[in-house]
């Protein structure tokens, strides 16, 4: 069996349709991940030790369990509790929640990376806590973590095919569907694979640029 160029051209519209869902799920999930991650990090810095530990273990639990059973949980369990959501919404929420535990680690490391002297200068200037965070620590920490956060956008893009487990018609699922119709899997799946490589390589070049840009602080 050989590569069928004509067939490749024919299935392209189907694949692009799937790509749309992939992009939507990745971007919407990323917004959740970036915001919720910061929330986790700040929640872990409250004065209550017990509360901090609870947050720590919740995030550890979400981070160290696989995405697919998490997708099942959100997609099948929430309706059992009376909350009905579509598969794409469930996918976006799960992807965002899952990766928020990664971005939380990134923010935490970024905050730890802000030199101790910055905290001391804040004390010496008698700045109130809210200002210490909003004006001094977070602007510096977030600047440091932008490239790493960029890496997680790529990571989420590459994990998005797992959403097919709950029947989201994303890129790989579309490829599988056209392949199953004609029993010609080679072309659609190879095209999808190449697409992933191309997007990943281009975006990692962009991230490297970000790294250079934010390397000097």
């Amino acid at each position, binding site marked *: 069996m050989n590569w069928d160029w004509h067939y490749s051209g024919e299935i392209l519209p189907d694949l692009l349709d799937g790509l749309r869902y992939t992009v939507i799920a990745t971007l919407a999930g990323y917004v959740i991940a970036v915001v919720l991650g910061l929330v986790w990090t700040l929640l872990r810095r409250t004065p209550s030790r017990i509360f901090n530990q609870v947050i720590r273990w919740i995030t550890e639990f979400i981070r160290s369990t696989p995405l697919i059973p998490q997708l099942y*949980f959100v997609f099948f369990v929430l309706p059992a509790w009376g909350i009905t959501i579509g598969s794409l919404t469930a996918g976006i929420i799960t992807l965002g929640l899952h990766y928020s535990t*990664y971005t939380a680690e990134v923010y935490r490391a970024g905050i730890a990376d802000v030199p101790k002297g910055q905290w001391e200068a804040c004390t010496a200037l008698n700045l109130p806590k809210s200002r210490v965070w909003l004006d001094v620590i977070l602007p510096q920490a977030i600047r440091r973590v932008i490239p790493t956060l960029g890496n997680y956008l790529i990571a989420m893009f590459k994990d998005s095919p797992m959403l097919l487990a709950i029947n989201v018609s994303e890129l790989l699922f579309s490829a599988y569907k056209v392949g199953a119709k004609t029993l010609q899997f080679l072309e659609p799946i190879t095209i999808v694979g190449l697409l992933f490589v191309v997007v990943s390589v281009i975006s990692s070049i962009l991230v490297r640029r970000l790294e250079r840009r934010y390397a000097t602080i």
Partner: protein
Amino acid sequence: MSDVLDSYPQWLDGAWVTVRLTLLGGALALVLALLFGMAGTSRHAWVRVLNRVYVEFFRGNATLVLLYWFFYALPLLGLRFTTLSAAVLALGLNVGAYGAEVVRGSINAVPKAQYEATVALNFTPFQRMRRVLLPQAFALMLPPFGNLLIELMKGTAIVSLVGLVDLTRVSKNIQGSTGQTVAAFSVVLVLYFIIAQVLQLFVRYAERRVDRMLGRRLPSEPSLETVAAGAPGTGVTG
């Protein structure tokens, strides 16, 4: 809940599949990571190109796409794999590419003076790597390797989508047969969590051994670099 727990033989079988996939995939990934990682530090440009091609292709791809490719596409070219070996290949090749970047970055992070000392002592390139550079780089590699092993364990869940009966598939089956959705999916998440914590213990133990071997104390909190290096994204190290 009791129905779900009564099915423990199924859970155990599924857990065994998950653990076996993790170990086999991890072994393949380790070998590939060391080979291609060292290739990335070679003086010869063509060897470094080999490293780049491998890393960019397999790291740039989604594991699930790789698995589908091995499982659905390649057999049409006459390359047939058992489901298990297709899964091990997809996981090992993918995680091995991340690992190669970790290895390359760690070797490059060994101070240049160490390399110069090996040249001054007239070591062969193999001796430099084996006796001086790798042992020092090893301590740097371990924490990100630990992260990657847990990522790999989580990655094994994709095999449930091509018919292997791992933990995730067992949970889906039990949910189907008992109708106890909450219990089935809660149990599977807890089981994965336990496996991850056990792996974590092994990794910590290995880290302590290596630290003692090299007589150094690594910071207990991961720095931004190590978080980035272990990232499942395209973390660019070194």
